[in-house]
């Protein structure tokens, strides 16, 4: 069967909001089976198969062309797909799942407010400690590209896959680059956000793969989806 494979997050609030977003646009996504089973169906458009995947895996599947369309965060697409614009198209920003990738430093660093300050502090830190200032993150590609663009030197990225805000207190990093929505976790860990636009402002977004096998049925199904959600074919 050459249906269109649409991937949505496999659980949680992001899935609920995705279902709501499609439902208000006349497309019903629903889970089938026991509720624990990762299976689902689509009503309102024909020839669309629902695939439930972890949001973190959806970018990879889009880039590989194993799914035609998918809902995931812009941050994940930017981090996991090099030159993502060449491999996936952004169809619609969905207005939820907002998260900013930001740089944060200890609040008591009263001398560091901007990215320029961070650069200057990194130079002094390297002189004082004989190592480059460590920034903990899991978004290596986005952060490195951002710091290159901003002309920051004398830093190093250290990998942190979770509890990133704790790395400074644990002396494994001096600064962090992480996703925040409200900033509560940062404040609780005595960190402040640098006063500059976020490294990346992200939200849940519907993407389309440029590398999937777009059979005629899949193209028709996509046109139906686009017409329901009021997006342009592109």
């Amino acid at each position, binding site marked *: 069967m050459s249906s269109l494979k649409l991937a949505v997050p496999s659980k949680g609030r992001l899935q609920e909001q995705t279902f709501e977003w499609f439902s208000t646009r006349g497309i019903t996504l629903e889970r089938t089976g026991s509720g624990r089973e990762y299976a689902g169906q689509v009503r309102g458009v024909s020839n669309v198969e629902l695939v439930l995947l972890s949001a973190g895996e959806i970018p990879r599947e889009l880039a590989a062309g194993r799914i035609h369309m998918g809902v995931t965060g812009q941050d994940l697409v930017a981090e996991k797909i090099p030159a993502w614009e060449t491999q996936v198209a952004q169809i619609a920003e969905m207005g939820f799942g907002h998260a900013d990738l930001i740089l944060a430093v200890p609040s008591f660093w009263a001398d560091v407010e901007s990215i320029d300050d961070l650069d200057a502090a990194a130079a002094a830190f390297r002189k*004082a400690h004989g190592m480059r200032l460590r920034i903990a993150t899991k978004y290596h590609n986005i952060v490195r590209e951002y*710091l290159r663009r901003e002309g920051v030197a004398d830093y190093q990225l250290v990998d942190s896959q979770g509890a990133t805000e704790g790395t400074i207190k644990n002396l494994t990093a001096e600064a962090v680059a992480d996703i925040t929505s409200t900033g509560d976790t940062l404040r609780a860990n005595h960190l*402040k956000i640098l006063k500059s636009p976020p490294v990346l402002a992200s939200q849940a977004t519907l993407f389309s793969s440029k590398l999937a096998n777009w059979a005629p049925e899949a193209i028709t199904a996509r046109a139906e989806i686009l017409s329901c959600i009021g997006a342009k074919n592109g």
Partner: protein
Amino acid sequence: MQANARAYLEGGRTGAGLAALRAEVGRLMAGFTANAAVTVEPAALLSADILIDLYGEDLRARAYTTHDPVLGEQMLRPDFTVPVAQMHLESGTAQGRYAYAGSVWRRQEPGSARPVEYLQCGFEAFGDANTAQADAEVFAMIAEALRNAPVAPVTGDMGIILAGVSALETTPPRKAALMRHLWRPDRFTRLLERYAAPLSQSENRSALLSALRGGRLEDYLSTQGPAIGLRSVSEIQKRAEILLEDAETPPIPPAQVALLERALAVNAPMKDAIKSLRRIAAEMPAITPAIDLIEARAEAISAFGIDGFQLPFEASYGRTSLEYYDGFVFGFTAEARADLPQIAQGGRYGALTRALGRETPAVGGIIRPEALLALGGPQ
């Protein structure tokens, strides 16, 4: 890519194609060793720490890294300059000349047609006493190797910007900050603009500085948050003192900034470039020794049978490269072939040897033999 293809050369990995490439590499190496260079072959796998300390985290986006549980993070040789310089510094001798040929590996942007593996054939000279003469010799050697190729030379000299920055009427920390970003022109320009403008201060910054002036810095910091992490209160105090000095520093006079910008914009045949720079030096005498060196070098190049005063000179050339060039810089470009990289390039890099632990005069250059053959160059 076909298994038989290599950088810029179809069929360069078998039979006649490979034989032609090997002959070309042999020809280039013979030219270098005829100039008293010792042949060296640095390791292909290098310690990532040293390279990243020199070039910064950006290098990770440009070079391939791999991990060894015992040796730690390793990098596939992105360049010969660092391992050859290390070989020389470890030798303990004052002078040394080295020739090498081998692959380097560079990650490329997604979608880029640039090869990720290509050959470099190069020459490095350490410990020369006469800067102009050694610069000229390396330039002439590379030019000679490219004699019949349709390439155009370009030259520059980082000495102009180095002297220009040290001549600015401003504080040592400001000069140091500018020097640190010589190789990042955008950030350099932003810094220079900020230092030339009247100070604008955020509320937080004013509060910090007034706390420092009033001797209440530690109390002030504790109102901001607990002292967590490796960067200590005394480090913040040190930087706050620099910020205070900076806040009391008058802007760099706009006329000086304009003069420096004028010097960096010079782009003309060497003879005219020297004249323009001399006119600028009338108001900025600090760049005179750098101009004298450019002139002496042009004369030394002319002694090799190349009219040094007709070579193109761009004062900003060499500022965006991966290298730590801090003096003479040059390149040879195939203008008719936008698909090819620079066919050859080189320069002087004392700052790199300083960062490696023993400052010594160092100048060198590389040729890309595959690109040269693809251009239909000398064979």
